[in-house]
C-alpha cells in the first residue's frame, strides 16, 4: 500500500458516515474508486429491492470530494456548493462502485463529475456533477 493510499484510507476511515454506509476505497495511480458492498440498510424500496437514491448520491458525493482532495493534493475535504444528481437506473441489491473526474480546479471553485455503476461500467445507475469550494490550502497555493 502506497503512502498516498494509506493516507487516503485513513482519511476515509475517519469519516463516521462512510463507515455507516460501509464504503471502501481503492486508488490506482491518482484515480480513486469507491466501493459500496450491498447492505440491507441501504435499501430505499424493499419491494424491488432498490438502493435508496440518497445513498447512491452520497456515494458519488464522497467520491467527488475524495478525488478532488487527491487531484488537488489537499489534506482537507472541500465544502460542497451544489450537486446535481441524475438517476438513470434502479440501484440493485449488489455492490456499487463510483469514480469521479475533476473537470476544473479554479482559484475558488472546482467542478467535478462522478458516476456510479454496478455490473457494467458502461451502464451507470446515476451520475453527479457538483461545484465545490476549493480547500484553503489549495487556494492559497495557487493565488
Amino acid at each position, binding site marked *: 500500500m502506497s503512502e498516498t493510499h494509506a493516507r487516503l484510507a485513513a482519511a476515509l476511515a475517519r*469519516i*463516521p458516515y462512510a*463507515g455507516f454506509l460501509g464504503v471502501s476505497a481503492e486508488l490506482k495511480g491518482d484515480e480513486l474508486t469507491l466501493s459500496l458492498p450491498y447492505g440491507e440498510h441501504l435499501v430505499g424500496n*424493499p419491494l424491488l429491492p432498490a438502493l435508496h437514491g*440518497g445513498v447512491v*448520491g452520497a456515494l458519488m458525493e*464522497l467520491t467527488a470530494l475524495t478525488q478532488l482532495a487527491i487531484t488537488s493534493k489537499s489534506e482537507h475535504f472541500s465544502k460542497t456548493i451544489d450537486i446535481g444528481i441524475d438517476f438513470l437506473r*434502479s440501484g440493485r441489491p449488489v455492490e456499487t462502485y463510483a469514480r469521479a473526474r475533476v473537470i476544473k480546479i479554479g482559484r475558488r471553485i472546482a467542478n467535478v463529475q462522478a458516476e456510479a455503476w454496478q455490473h457494467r461500467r458502461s451502464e451507470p445507475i446515476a451520475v453527479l456533477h457538483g461545484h465545490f469550494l476549493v480547500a484553503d490550502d489549495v487556494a492559497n497555493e495557487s493565488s
Partner: protein
Amino acid sequence: MAAGPPLYGAGDDVFERVRTMMQWTPQGRALGLELVRIDNGKVLGRIPYRAQLAGDPESGIFAGGVITTLLDQVCGMAAVVAMREPAVVATIDLRIDYMRPAAAGRDVFAEAHCYKIGKNVAFVRAIAFEDAPENAIAHAASAFMVNSNSGRRIGANLRGNKP
C-alpha cells in the same frame, strides 16, 4: 370543478399512511428519519442528530449524503401526497444547493412541497434547516417519475437488465 378521486394527501389518516411508507424504507429506518407533519401538501421530515452520521469526525457535522437522503425522501413523500392514488415514485433528478453546513449536534428538518404534478412527472422543492426555513442549510429541486412501474408489475423495468 371536476369531481375526481380525492388526493392521496387528503383525509384524516394521511399522516399515518405516509409515516408507514417512510418506516417501510430500510435506509430511512437506519438513519432514523421521522415524519413530523403534513400540512397543506407540505411534508416535514426530521433526522435526529447522531455523531455516527457525521461527515467530519472533528466538527461532528452531518455528512452531505445524510442531507441528500433526507431531502430525497421528503421530496418523494411530497410527490405521493400530491397524487390521486398512491403509486411508486422514482427520482429522475435531484439538485441541491448548500447554503451552509448543518450545525453540529442539531436535528435537521426538511420540508418538501410538490408544486406541479402531471401524468408522468412531479416537480418538488424542499428546504433543509434546523430552526426555520428562512435560515436554510440547503435548498433542493427535484423531479420524480410518477407511476414509475407504468402499470406493469413493480420491478418490470429491471427485467432484461440482469447481469
